[in-house]
C-alpha cells in the first residue's frame, strides 16, 4: 500500500522521460506542479487547471492525461513522458513543417496528445483525429495547421516499417 502524509513532505521516486528521480512532494501536489516546480520540466503548461484546455497534457504509461488533474501520488508506479521526452517525435517536426504554431503556449499539449494518437492509432481517420484533438484548445491558430501537422505525421508514420526505418527513402 502506498501512503504519504500530511504537513510533511514525502520523498518519492518518479519515472519521468525514462529516468527515475527522487523528489520531495506534498500529497496535495498535482503532477503538473511537481514537473514544473520540482523537476524544472516547464514544457507542460499551467492554464485552466480544470481539464478544459489540454495545455498540461503528459503521457502516463503512454496515455494522454491532464497533469493538472492528476496527483503526483497517483502517478508513482507509472512511466511519465513530457514534451521534453519527445524531442525526436515526428509530430514535433510536423508542427514545425506545417507552421502549426503561433504563440506556442498550447503546442506542447497538442504535440504530446498527437504523439499518443499517432502511436496508438497509426491509421487514425478524421473522426478519431477530431475526437482526440477536442481535448486541446488553441487561442491563436484556426486549428487547420494543427490538423495538417497531425495528418502529415500519421502519413509519415505509415511510411516507417515496424523497426522505425523510413521505407520511403530506401
Amino acid at each position, binding site marked *: *500500500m*502506498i*501512503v*504519504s*502524509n*500530511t*504537513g510533511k513532505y514525502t520523498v518519492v521516486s518518479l519515472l519521468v522521460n525514462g529516468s527515475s528521480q527522487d523528489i520531495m512532494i*506534498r*500529497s*496535495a*501536489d*498535482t503532477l503538473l*506542479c511537481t514537473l514544473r516546480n520540482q523537476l524544472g520540466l516547464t514544457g507542460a503548461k499551467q492554464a485552466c*487547471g*480544470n*481539464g478544459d484546455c*489540454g495545455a498540461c*497534457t503528459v503521457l*502516463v504509461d503512454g*496515455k*494522454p*492525461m*491532464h497533469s*493538472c*488533474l*492528476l*496527483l503526483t*501520488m*497517483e502517478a508513482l508506479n507509472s512511466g511519465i513522458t513530457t514534451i521534453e521526452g519527445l524531442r525526436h517525435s515526428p509530430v514535433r517536426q510536423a508542427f514545425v513543417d506545417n507552421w502549426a504554431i503561433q504563440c506556442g503556449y498550447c503546442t506542447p499539449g497538442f504535440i504530446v*496528445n498527437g504523439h499518443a494518437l499517432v502511436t496508438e492509432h497509426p491509421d487514425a481517420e478524421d473522426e478519431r483525429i477530431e*475526437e*482526440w484533438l*477536442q*481535448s*486541446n484548445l488553441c487561442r491563436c491558430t484556426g486549428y487547420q495547421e494543427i490538423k495538417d501537422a497531425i495528418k502529415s505525421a500519421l502519413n509519415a508514420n505509415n511510411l516507417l516499417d515496424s523497426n522505425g526505418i523510413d521505407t520511403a527513402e530506401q
Partner: protein
Amino acid sequence: MIPFNFDYFKPETLEEALKIYSSEWKLGKKVIYLSGGTEVITFARGGKMTFDSVIDLKGIPECTMLEMQGDDLVIGAAVTLNRLVESNHFPLLSKTVRTIADHTSRNKITIGGNLMSKLGYREGILPFLITDAIAVVYGPAGTEAMPVDNLAAAELAEGQFLTQVKVAASNLDLPFVSMKRTRSSKVGYPIVSLAALRKEGRIRIAFSGIHEHPFRSAVVEGILNDETIEDQQRIDKAIAKLPTNVTDDFIASKDFRKFVLNKLLTEMNAVWEGSR
C-alpha cells in the same frame, strides 16, 4: 495548487480501504474516496471541498475489473470511461460515456466517479437506469447490492463506497439510442442527454440535464409507449409530465431544454421508425 494538505492512501483490498477509513474517521478526520480524482482535485483546488485523508481505490482489483462473470457484466468503479469505450462490452454505455468530457479527460474519469459525482449530470448512469443495473457497495456491513437508482451519495452509509456495477448480459445488446445536445461545442455539459432502449417491445428511457439529477420516470415512459396516440402528441404529453423544476441556468433556460428534448424525442422516434 491545492491549498491544504492531506494524507493519501492507496490500499490493495476492500478490507484495507475500510480499515483506513474507520481509523482515520475515529481520529475525527474527514475522509473521502477517490476513483479518477478529477472532480476531487478540481473541487479541492477551487475551495469547494476540503478533507484530511484520501483513499484512492485504483489499487483494488474488484474496483478495476471489467469482465463477464456468469450472466453479468461486472464493471469496477475505478474503470476509466475510455476503457469502457474501447472494450465495448455494452455498446449503449460506450456510446453514452464517449460524450462525457473530452478524450484526454476520459483516460482519467472513472465510471464510479461519474456515478458518485457531486455535479448533477452523471450521464454515465443513464444506461444503468434503463437496464435495472445493480450497484455493489462495500462498507461496515460488508458487501451489499442495491438498485443503481438508489445511488446518491447521501444514501451511502458512513465509510461505504461503490465497488462495482453489474448489468445482466441479456440487456447488453438491445437496440438503443443515445443522444446529447450541448450549448456550443461537442464537449460540454448537456442541455439534454438521453439514453433509450427497446426491451420486449417497450421503450425504456432516462435523461440527464433536464433536472437536478438524472432520472427515469415511469409516467413519462408510460406515455412514450402509448401507441393509441400520435407521435407528436405523445412527445408533448411526456414533456408536460416531466418532473417539476426543470433546470433553468446559464447553460440553457427551462423552455430551451424542453424545446431541445422535444427535438431529440422526435429524432429518437425517427430512428426507431427507420429500424422497424
